[in-house]
């Protein structure tokens, strides 16, 4: 059985590198295969051919990846459009999980303390005067807020903050800052702070979320 399988699909060619075979054998087979393909290509005088590569349940190291790509790049007539695999590193998986899940945080953030969360946060703790809660994603507030809340840190303008912000010092989203003492907005627990089309901090209610952030709204529907 061969370790490198080439199949034609509607949208191009798919090159499967079998995870059961050794990498050395795959490399030799690839070398032979492309030498042959290049020969055929020149005879047929076809245009540039693109390949997708699937490594199945094998995760190529950076070096192996380079070897495969380098081998194919020798031929100007061929190009790799995608390199995919069924597997990812645990650390990568964990990072993705962190990013996607809503963290529940019940900390007491005191003056001078700063809590930074990867992803979204449902905050049920307290932020004292001078404390800062930062999240790379959205912030949903149920707790008492006297300090500073910052969503979408450092530059995610899509982020929103849901909750009563009337007692907060400052609200920050991405690089926009609002000082609540200057913003006479009537907040409720269903208020939403977001960045509008003019890149300014604006407020709405949860009922507007469908128009303000359709993506987030749909994501909530799925959960």
């Amino acid at each position: 059985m061969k370790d490198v399988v080439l199949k034609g699909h509607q949208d191009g060619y798919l090159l499967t590198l079998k995870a059961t075979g050794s990498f050395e054998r795959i490399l030799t087979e690839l070398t032979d295969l492309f030498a042959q393909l290049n020969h055929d290509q020149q005879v047929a005088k076809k245009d540039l051919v693109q390949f997708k590569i699937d490594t199945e349940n094998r995760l190529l190291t950076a070096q192996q990846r380079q070897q495969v790509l380098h081998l194919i790049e020798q031929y100007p007539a061929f190009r790799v459009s995608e390199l995919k695999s069924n597997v990812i590193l645990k650390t990568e998986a964990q990072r993705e999980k962190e990013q996607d899940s809503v963290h529940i945080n019940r900390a007491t953030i005191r003056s001078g303390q700063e809590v930074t969360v990867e992803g979204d946060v449902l905050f049920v703790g307290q932020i004292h005067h001078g404390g800062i809660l930062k999240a790379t994603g959205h912030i949903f507030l149920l707790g008492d807020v006297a300090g500073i809340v910052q969503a979408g840190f450092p530059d995610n303008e899509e982020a929103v903050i849901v909750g009563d912000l009337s007692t907060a010092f400052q609200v920050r989203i991405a690089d926009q800052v609002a000082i609540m003492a200057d913003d006479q907005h009537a907040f409720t627990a269903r208020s939403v702070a977001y960045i509008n089309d003019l890149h300014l901090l604006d407020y709405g209610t949860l009922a507007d979320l469908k128009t303000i952030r359709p993506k987030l709204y749909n994501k909530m529907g799925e959960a």
Partner: protein
Amino acid sequence: MGTALVVTSGKGGVGKTTSSANLGTALALQNKRVCLMDLDIGLRNLDVVLGLENRIIYDIVDVAQGRAKLHQALVKDKRFEDNLYLLPAAQNTDKDALLPDEVKAIVAELKEEFDFVILDCPAGIEQGFQNAIAGADGAIVISTPEISAVRDADRVVGLLEQQDMKYEPRLIINRIRQHMMNQGDVMDIDEITKHLSIKLLGIVLDDDGVIKSSNHGDPIVLDPKNPASQGYRNIARRLLGETVPLMSIKEEKVGFWQRLFGHKK
């Protein structure tokens, strides 16, 4: 070109921050452009006393380390038009995050634009103190009539004299309780001044209003009738070169007949 003054005491709790805020405000009321600089890294308070805590976006460490421009970090006090600004301290960085040379550079930049730069020094005589005095042209030493405060002030004056500043250090005696001083329970003004052998800049009486107004984020100087406020106003005028006599610490004696028939206060 402005003047940079450091407000220092050695001992904690004698009123450095309150005095900085009130002197700054009093000078701003005299139509001088003033920048207050909080150097108490990690335990900042000046912003709270001025009621500007909620407006801080960048701080002095951000400026020193190049994360923000100086004018971005300055917080304007809207009550005084364009006269009073605050450069806040950092709240959550290491207290050694700042170096004397960095403070010097920032003070030099501020002096170009402001008539007075007032540096609020942290308690103690460590790194924070060294930072605060590095950029100053002169020092205002705060002491209370307590022996421990006078002792620490004496130590600080000694350290300041080694610094070779443009102006000699001057003394403010703060939180004077008239009845105690009149009864001789604490050192009196002459004693303290003589002991420290520096010029007296002024005295400030102890008054409940100081704490009350600080809690609202309003410096007491804004209340012209308050006795502590008058003390700070006099000091500001002396700083500007006026000759203002020292206020009396004599308590008003209420006569017998007045007590019987006089209006209740």
